[in-house]
């Protein structure tokens, strides 16, 4: 057994405090009964109730979910297609340039992406609203999807596709029946990544949003400028809870699957 070490215990505490203290304070104050954010006046869930009455927050939340679902779905389709071509397309003229170009938006400052999209939308006379936010989010999140999916495709045994062709599949059938089911976990995590990115994006959304559509981050940001209200603490706590549950569920499922696979493989080895 390893001996207890004061040094390790201290670094662990400090590290986690650094990461989670702000969030813990936010959660605690969301249950504060006082309107003043920094003064504790007793436990209450009244701000959660108030939140449900706040039409503008609920509208913004609904817009955000719509934008996130639409943009991450489109980004997943486009990003997967891009990744497939770049990994499987073989050598063609300018392949390096193309793969560089797909990854460039990852490091592009968001302000620039947002500004250029705004200029484009104004240039072609597109009214800003929910549609333009979806377009903008698709643009920057498809790169992330493409990175996730292509890293899976690189390790994908190409002979599986060849086997499908050999057994009579058209190239499209081979993709649909063999490649896609096997890379599905990467595609799903690409979708989740795009979804999260879209959920919490503030910069690009504020460039491309119009008066008809405001996302939750924009709403929160503008509310905070007028002073932090406990309602926002409550809203943030709900978002943290959703994300936490999502992450824990996903990791439990992954863990179970890998355990089951290990067990099966050991069983197969024994009966061999």
């Amino acid at each position, binding site marked *: 057994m390893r001996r207890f070490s004061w040094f390790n215990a201290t670094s662990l505490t400090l590290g986690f405090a650094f990461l989670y203290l702000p969030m813990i304070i936010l959660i605690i104050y969301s249950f504060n009964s006082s309107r003043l954010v920094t003064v504790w006046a007793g436990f209450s869930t009244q701000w959660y109730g108030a939140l449900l009455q706040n039409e503008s927050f609920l509208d913004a939340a609904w817009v955000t979910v719509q934008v996130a679902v639409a943009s991450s779905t489109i980004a997943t389709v486009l990003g997967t297609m891009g990744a497939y071509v770049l990994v499987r397309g073989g050598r063609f003229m300018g392949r390096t340039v193309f793969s560089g170009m797909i990854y460039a938006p990852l490091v592009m400052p968001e302000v620039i992406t947002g500004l250029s999209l705004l200029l484009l939308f104004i240039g072609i006379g597109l009214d800003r609203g929910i549609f333009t936010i979806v377009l903008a989010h698709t643009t920057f999140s498809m790169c992330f999807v493409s990175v996730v999916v292509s890293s899976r495709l690189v390790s994908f045994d190409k002979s*599986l596709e*060849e086997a499908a062709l*050999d*057994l009579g599949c058209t190239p499209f059938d081979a993709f649909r*029946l063999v490649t896609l089911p096997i890379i599905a976990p990467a595609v799903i995590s690409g979708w989740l990544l795009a979804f999260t990115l879209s959920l919490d994006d503030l910069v690009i959304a504020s460039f491309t949003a119009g008066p008809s559509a405001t996302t939750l981050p924009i709403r929160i940001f503008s509310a905070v400028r007028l002073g932090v209200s406990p309602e926002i603490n409550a809203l943030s706590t709900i978002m943290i809870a959703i994300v936490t549950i999502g992450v824990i569920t996903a990791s439990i499922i992954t863990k179970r699957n890998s355990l089951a696979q290990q067990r*099966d493989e050991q069983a197969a080895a024994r009966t*061999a």
Partner: protein
Amino acid sequence: MAQTVFAPWDDPQAKPLIQFRNVTKRFGEFTAIENLTQDIYEREFFSLLGPSGCGKTTLMRMLAGFENVTEGQILIAGQDMANVPPNKRAVNMMFQSYALFPHLSVWENIAFGLKREGKPKAEIDARVDEMLRLTRLVKFAKRKPHQISGGQRQRVALARSLAKAPKLLLLDEPLGALDKKLRQDTQFELMDIQEKTGTTFVIVTHDQEEAMTVSSRVAVMDEGRIIQVATPAQIYEAPNCVYVADFIGEVNIIDGVATSDGDGYRIAWAEGQEPFFAKTPNSFSEGQRCHIAIRPEKVAISAERPDDMANAVEGQIIDIAYLGNISTYHVKLTNGQMIKAQAANTRRLSRRSFTWEDRVWLSWTDTAAVVLES
């Protein structure tokens, strides 16, 4: 009673199933296959044997349709395959990695190709069951590929590629991933299945023992060319060059100069030594340089000079490799040449006749060796 020997390649009337006509394949600057012409007949078990990078896998991938031919033609059953994609060929392939679909069960893997043909369900069920029985996998039908052992996976891959009853089955190093014991059992199983189904098998392997065991004919390849095509026995007993002799099994190569003598040749191989005598169908001019290739098991080892052998030479035992059933003696001749001789260990070890540093006589008959051009 005369037995009919399976040898369609000797029958000028036989129509080949596969014809390679002056096939060349280049990858950029690199020539993988160079001007290759070869026929393969129906029901053959044809091996492509060679070191890695000799072009054997490229040849197979061109048959399957995964690679295009740069020059020349490949015909299968008389039809030019140039513009036929893999999914339209009556050819199936068993991949080296098996390429089993991990998300499908054994049953679904085998049914995959049949479903693509749009066959009625009852027919698919019957065919898959037949394949499961043929490969003894009935018990594992519902398992996923990661839930079965390596040997079972190999059989699933075989069943899947045979399910569509292809005219031609390509096997890419099919037994490479199995351990030695399982590999030997599976070799016989493969031959059995090939006979039962009457399918033409083309197999790629770098394992010469495997090629010898399973094949009707073996093609030894090197650097994009087929060096020799013959039955396993012919390849072993009558290799057409030093490369083939050396690649298949163990061989002693002695360099010399040929002089015609009666129905054979005298081959001078060292100063002051009696020349060796060998009968050979190959013809050599006077004084032509040549190689004597002789298998270790055809070299007899004895304490005294034997009287009845055409060739005898004295040497000293340098090393003995004891393999249980046989021993290989490494014998050094007076000119420094090392010769390997094999003898069956019919007696127990303690009563063995020779030991290290003994002076012995090596001998062989006039037909034991093959004489090859330089």
